[in-house]
């Protein structure tokens, strides 16, 4: 299949209240603070202005931060940006599923909210990023037991070699009850680190 070379141009990890961009730590909060406060502190630290961020659930916030760091110099809201999204995780939208289920659990306590229900789908975080970066492009969300660089690299190469996108933003983005991890990387066809399973495993230490 690989009649077109592909390269990783940048990458980002977020875990344990720490953000690494291209191998360097760029933001950290005390391990003791919760994800909501960490996310807010990161947003303020980078000086972003996107009020919708505060309406998102934790999974979307996590994805938003990582995508923002990799795409902010790549995309412009005035032009179209042909970057496909290939995202994956283990916990689907379970963190928000549990919140929604609690809201419908009893007759006495029945208060379902559309603002919660819409986040009971893992692909919503891709929708948020598509809106933010004007990505009218290919996107698919996969679930695996654990981060699966072999599958992601193969599927990404399919998208690039069949000209479905100029670049692909790949992600593992998992959030359940304060345990979270984001592994994001941007793949292109021109320059960077060689894009393959081994490189991905090295970058994300898996």
């Amino acid at each position, binding site marked *: 299949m690989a009649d077109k070379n592909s390269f990783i141009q940048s990458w980002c990890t977020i875990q344990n209240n720490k953000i690494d961009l291209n191998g360097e730590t760029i933001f950290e909060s005390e391990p003791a603070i919760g994800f909501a406060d960490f996310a807010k502190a990161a947003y303020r630290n980078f000086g972003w202005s996107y009020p919708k961020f505060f309406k998102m659930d934790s999974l979307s916030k996590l994805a938003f931060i990582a995508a923002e760091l990799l795409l902010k110099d790549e995309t412009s809201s005035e032009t179209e940006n042909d970057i496909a*999204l290939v995202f994956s995780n283990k916990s689907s939208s379970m963190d928000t599923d549990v919140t929604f*289920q609690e809201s419908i659990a009893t007759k006495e306590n029945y208060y379902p909210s559309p603002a919660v*229900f819409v986040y009971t*789908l893992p*692909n919503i975080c891709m929708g948020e990023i598509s809106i933010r970066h004007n990505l*009218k492009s290919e996107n*698919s969300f996969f679930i695996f037991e654990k981060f699966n660089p072999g*599958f992601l690299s193969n599927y990404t190469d*399919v998208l690039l070699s069949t000209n479905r996108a100029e670049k692909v933003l790949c992600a593992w983005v998992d959030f359940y009850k304060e345990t979270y991890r984001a592994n994001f990387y941007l793949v292109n066809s021109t320059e960077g680190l060689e894009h393959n399973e081994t490189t991905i495993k090295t970058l994300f230490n898996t």
Partner: protein
Amino acid sequence: MKLNSVFINATNCITPLGLDVETNIRNISNGVSGIRLHKNQVYAEQPFYASIIEDDLIEEAFSSISASVEYTRLEKMMILALMPVIKKSNPVFDEKTILIVSTTKGNITQLNTISETSVQSADLSLMAKKIASFFGFTTEPVIVSNACVSGILSLAVAKRLIQSEGCNQAFVVAGDEFSKFVLSGFNCFQAVSDEPCQPYSVNRKGVTLGEAAAAACVSANGQNALAEIAGDGAINDANHISGPSRTGEGLFRSVERAMQEAEVKAEEIDYINAHGTATSFNDEMEAIAFNRSRLGNVPLNSLKGYYGHTLGASGLLETVIGIESLNSGKLYSSIGFDEMGLSQPLNIITQNEDKELNYLLKTASGFGGCNTAVLFKKTK
């Protein structure tokens, strides 16, 4: 680069209209719908319309293939859907044979009582693993969970993986169950109809929910194939997370991409099996997108009037039925439709008719701004 052609070799479905394709087609051709009025306080205070499979039918069918009690109701539906497809295909379960599981909410009913155990049993990879080991797959299952396009997207994913030589044969199973979770969710969006759903009608009031499982075998082997997967696209609206684009942007682009890949012009498409959920916004958006692609006069139906909205199963289920139409040349009435309720023309099929068909376009759209279009070509 010339890519391999990819085909659908076998299909099956488990629905309120039958536990095999033949029975489903017989019921559809007779205008039978699975939608009924249900009065069940477990799901809702008020009576509601839904298309639900009787528990006894699933239990009875499953007990004839396995005595195991470890499977959830949805897993049983999905295993039952896959069983004849796998039997017919008789695969070698090596590293090039994969299982693709497509679902929107999976075992969400396990959360009815919230505990760490129930959260674990609602885990999607656990569900996929149970199904994979039931049949003896040796590869890790691929799970596609992309809202209401999951079922049709999983066929596009299967095609792409086969063309990349990531696998030789993909078994795709899609399933979603009726649940209080989803009913409450659509209700709080005020998106559930208090009558059986009426796709594209001026009288449409929203969705009717349903449940189903469907399965297909996909490979590069065109011998005795049911259809070729000729082109596909899955492009986001980048517009809104809980409503479709008013210009139908993502759906339009997905359709254009599928046609371009298949090297098919709009006038060559004979039949559109659309999403048609019967919400005000979705159906209108489809009319706009199809007219932008000059498909406004192509015969079109939504099968939601027969099955309700079966979420992640719908794209695959409706493809299974659509492919039957493609091969038999029988187009089925889009039941629930009466008077046109769109700003632009669509050629809604109002009674069963016979027509020579060569190309079928299947589409779906969902929350998160996702869309998928897949073009199927007759091979028989």
